[in-house]
């Protein structure tokens, strides 16, 4: 694997995580518990779309075969997507969405804070923008987790069920492979081993503030990096890519 191939793959991963999250969050449009929360979640979806656009555009440039961000978003099959499984999980109830946002936004805040120091200037400049968004997403999710966790019996039960259910998808966020190793050597990729303990500490603290208990399951699901997904991604892509698949090059 050359550095160019690794960088292409790395940008795809980050871009796919943003794209898949964007899609899931946008599914809340008109369905959130309140109008204000509806706007908030869809705002986050738009943040993610911008992020996906920046990262996939860069991936296409690195690849050098003339692929645009749209080509990468709409013309790749399920097995070619390399997002973390947690991001493709269905929204579930509001507590599940908040739990996912809490886990992922905290991770992204730490991840992109590190990526700002990447030797790759393009990635560093994208990270500088993303880190501000992630900080807000994390705060929003944390505040809701605190409210729901310390709210009624029902909201507490749901919030606990949500973090328990999603816990097994959190380990994968810290998995590394040859792509990471190669780019770590060049000071381009983030050292995930460095952010893992900080993430764990923050999540433990937030869960405690929410009056909940840390999930106990030790089993961690993985596969996203290799393109092996849960049953949910295929359905999402079928819907998301429908137009470009049915009417290639459709534009308006």
């Amino acid at each position: 694997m050359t550095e160019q191939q690794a960088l292409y793959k790395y940008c795809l991963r980050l871009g796919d995580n943003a794209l898949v999250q964007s899609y899931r969050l946008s599914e809340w449009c008109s369905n959130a518990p309140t109008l204000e929360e509806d706007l908030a979640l869809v705002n986050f979806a738009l943040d993610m779309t911008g992020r996906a656009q920046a990262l996939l555009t860069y991936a296409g440039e690195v690849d050098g075969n003339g692929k645009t961000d749209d080509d990468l978003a709409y013309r790749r099959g399920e097995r070619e997507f390399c997002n973390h499984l947690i991001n493709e999980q269905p929204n579930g109830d509001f507590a599940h969405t908040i739990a996912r946002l809490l886990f992922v936004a905290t991770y992204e805040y730490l991840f992109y804070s590190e990526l700002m120091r990447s030797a790759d200037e393009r990635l560093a400049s994208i990270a500088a923008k993303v880190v501000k968004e992630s900080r807000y997403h994390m705060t929003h999710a944390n505040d809701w987790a605190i409210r729901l966790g310390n709210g009624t019996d029902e909201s507490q039960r749901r919030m606990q069920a949500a973090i328990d259910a999603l816990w097994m998808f959190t380990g994968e966020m810290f998995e590394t492979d040859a792509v990471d190793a190669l780019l770590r050597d060049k000071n381009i990729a983030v050292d995930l081993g460095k952010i893992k303990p900080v993430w764990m500490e923050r999540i433990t603290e937030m869960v405690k503030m929410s009056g909940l208990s840390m999930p106990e399951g030790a089993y961690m699901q993985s596969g996203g990096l290799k393109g092996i997904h849960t049953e949910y991604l295929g359905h999402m892509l079928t819907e998301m890519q429908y137009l470009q698949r049915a009417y290639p090059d459709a534009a308006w």
Partner: protein
Amino acid sequence: MDTQLGKWEVFMQAKPGANYIHAGAIHASDKKMALQNARDTYTRRGEGTSIWVVPTDAIVASNPDDNDMFFDPSNDKTYRLPTFYVMPEGAKAI
């Protein structure tokens, strides 16, 4: 039963030093949520750089029945208006 959260009025400042202008209202259960909801509802297209949120019930409004007493007396006294002054050059915020 009204299941809405408490109502808050939102005031936005377009740029540092400018007046805070009423933007609208949102619902929220606490100060922090009110600020976030105001941000998410009213600043999506670069409308402002600072936000105030105020619980709606903290606002005291004048009664329309008092409009004669409150507002009419100033209507026919043009000497109350500063229209006879020449605006100094460069005064932008007036």
